[in-house]
């Protein structure tokens, strides 16, 4: 039964040495920490315009999430076609749910 419906060929390929080392993950951790500190700092500094802070916060959150999805959750690895699709579709849904809620409640 093991060969029923072989998943995409990526699973069969041996990964290069070093991929599994903790370095990538520690770098991801460092990036996340830095982005988080920046986000908290942006809020604490007075005198920056609200719109700018909002944009900055959202951008940093998206960056952090993308990095975590790609490295910690291995989405960048081969054989993750369907998971990536699921995430993209989910993200799309979120974007339009949030957009419609914001559009409706704030602007109309």
């Amino acid at each position, binding site marked *: 039964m*093991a060969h029923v419906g072989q998943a995409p060929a990526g699973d069969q390929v041996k990964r290069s040495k070093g991929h599994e080392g903790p370095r990538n993950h520690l770098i991801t951790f460092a990036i996340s920490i830095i982005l988080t500190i920046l986000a908290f700092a942006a809020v604490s500094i007075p005198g920056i315009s*609200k719109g700018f802070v909002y944009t900055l916060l959202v951008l940093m959150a998206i960056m952090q999430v993308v990095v975590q999805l790609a490295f910690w959750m291995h989405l960048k690895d081969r054989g993750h076609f369907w*998971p990536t699709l699921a995430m993209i579709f*989910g993200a799309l849904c*979120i974007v339009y749910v*949030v957009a*419609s*809620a914001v559009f409706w409640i704030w602007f109309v």
Partner: protein
Amino acid sequence: MSHAHAEGHTIDHLERATLEGKNKILGFWIFLGAEMVIFGTLFAAHIGLRGELNGGVSGSEIFSLPIVAIMTALLLTSSMTSVLAIQAMHRHELKGVALWLGITVLLALGFLGLEIYEFVHYVHEYHFNIQQSPFSTTFYVLVGCHGTHVAIGIVWISLLIGQLFKKGLTVVTAPKVYVASLYWHFIDVVWVFIFTVVYLMGKVG
């Protein structure tokens, strides 16, 4: 039923050694897609209604950023430790897996404790309960939904540690550990948006 060849080339990916393991991981990804929509919808409600205070308190009045920062640090670190658990699993180090998962659970408990403290504090200090305003309702449902996920994760990972000691690292337990770690990362991902959208933006006003 030929696991013999499956064993050969996925020595470092025990969780994908069987079709069942692959199914479980793919299924869990699809489930995470559904979870994204669930949290996305709650975020939509929160973003839409967070300005509606109904005479109650606002986020900028009550949120305490130091606590949120500590919670963030705890959860982020726990996400990191769950990665280390997976790495230990790929090296077939049972004790390493259990150790890192144990640390993950401890950090998560710290996070959950702080969240409960935070909620109790709000209710006592500001009468900021679920009925106060649309802002409070969306706040508690969104953050509480995330907290519930953390609690479920704690129970789940604790049980997994027990299973690991009982059965060892096998093609049955490995996908479970992998999937649990995916779940845990996802909780961290959601938290990134919660501290950004709910707390930091709430603090800005």
